[in-house]
């Protein structure tokens, strides 16, 4: 049974790392602020979700699993808010750079 758990963990964390990598490539290669924000918020939240999903089989019990999921929820919330604020500032400053 622990082999199956380890396989899920490796698969989940690898998928998460792939999405983080994709988000970082987007951050470095996209031309302006709004597209970069799009890449970061989508890819990084999904990457963290996969990492959390991969770590869930390794937790000790239901409470630790709920803590991991709530960490993902908090990051989602903070990321969404900050992306909106940065995007609004970028649009108001007009440059979009």
């Amino acid at each position, binding site marked *: 049974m622990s082999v199956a758990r380890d396989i899920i963990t490796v698969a989940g964390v690898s998928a998460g790392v792939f999405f983080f990598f994709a988000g970082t490539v987007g951050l470095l290669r996209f031309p302006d602020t709004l597209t970069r924000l799009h890449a970061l918020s989508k890819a990084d939240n999904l990457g963290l979700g996969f990492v959390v999903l991969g770590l869930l089989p390794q937790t000790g019990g239901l409470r630790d699993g709920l803590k991991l999921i709530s960490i993902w929820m*908090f990051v989602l*919330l903070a990321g969404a*808010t900050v992306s909106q*604020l940065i995007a609004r500032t970028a649009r108001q400053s007009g440059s979009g750079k």
Partner: protein
Amino acid sequence: MNIATVFEIALAAVVLGLAIWTIAVPDTYSATVGFIAYGLLVALIWVRLDAVDVALTEAAIGGGLGGVVLLGAAARLRDTEAMTTERPSLIVRLSAAILSAAIAAALAVTILLLPDPAPTLAPSVVANAGATGMTNPVTNVLMAFRGMDTMLEKVVLLLAIVGVWSLASDQAWGGRPGPRHQADPNGVLAFLARLLPPAGIVVGIYILWTGADHPGGAFQGGAVLASMWLLVIMAGLVDTPPVRSRWLRLILVGGPGLFLAVGLGGLCFGSAFLAYPVAFAKPLILSIEVAMLLTIATTLGLLLAGAPERSAER
């Protein structure tokens, strides 16, 4: 050379790269952002060194709150970039580089030559852990074995607040720190400031409570509470309190005051200053920690809010 060592070398390389970038980049705002990223990665190094309490403190206070105060200053000082600068001459920079390289080399040699059966105080911490009834060794050291340091540290925080408040101009003496923040009351920031603080307060109190047996404690919990307060202030939902308000000053003094009172109680009724009677050790420590939590949260928030800028009548 196993996989853990490869990870550690990669982490150390990224941290050093960020540090070099922070020192070398010409734009100050970018240096501040680099420093925040550096602080968070150093928290990872602390986890790798098996010091989770310190990792929490570094992430919350060193990288988090420290980064916020630096970002605020960098934003306000952005227009002065063009005005300064008298760069120090090449001679000064060269000698500074030689001096820094020499000190770094001396420290590196010292690290490599540390004595081999490493001296440690961990066995004595374990041997005396029965005195407090808590199982987190770092909390034991902070609150019981080196309680004097923690109490004096609270006094240092008070002195920093007094220093910051004394920088107010004459009109703003005793007034409200910082500018009045405005945000769209239907916007995302106000939404976050209404949604997150209840959860944040629960998390902060939980970190304090679980510090008795697991990594955590009053400082980390206080930092989380302070950041929730600052979020509400930054969204414009609450204004900063005037610094001459009595209840504010009572909260600030409450933490070190209670600590001092318990210490003097130990002197009068017990064997020494800050000696806890074994039967009451855990309740006493918990009550000190609760007062400390409030004081630390208020102090950190006020240190970030800055010197009073608006007079209190408005």
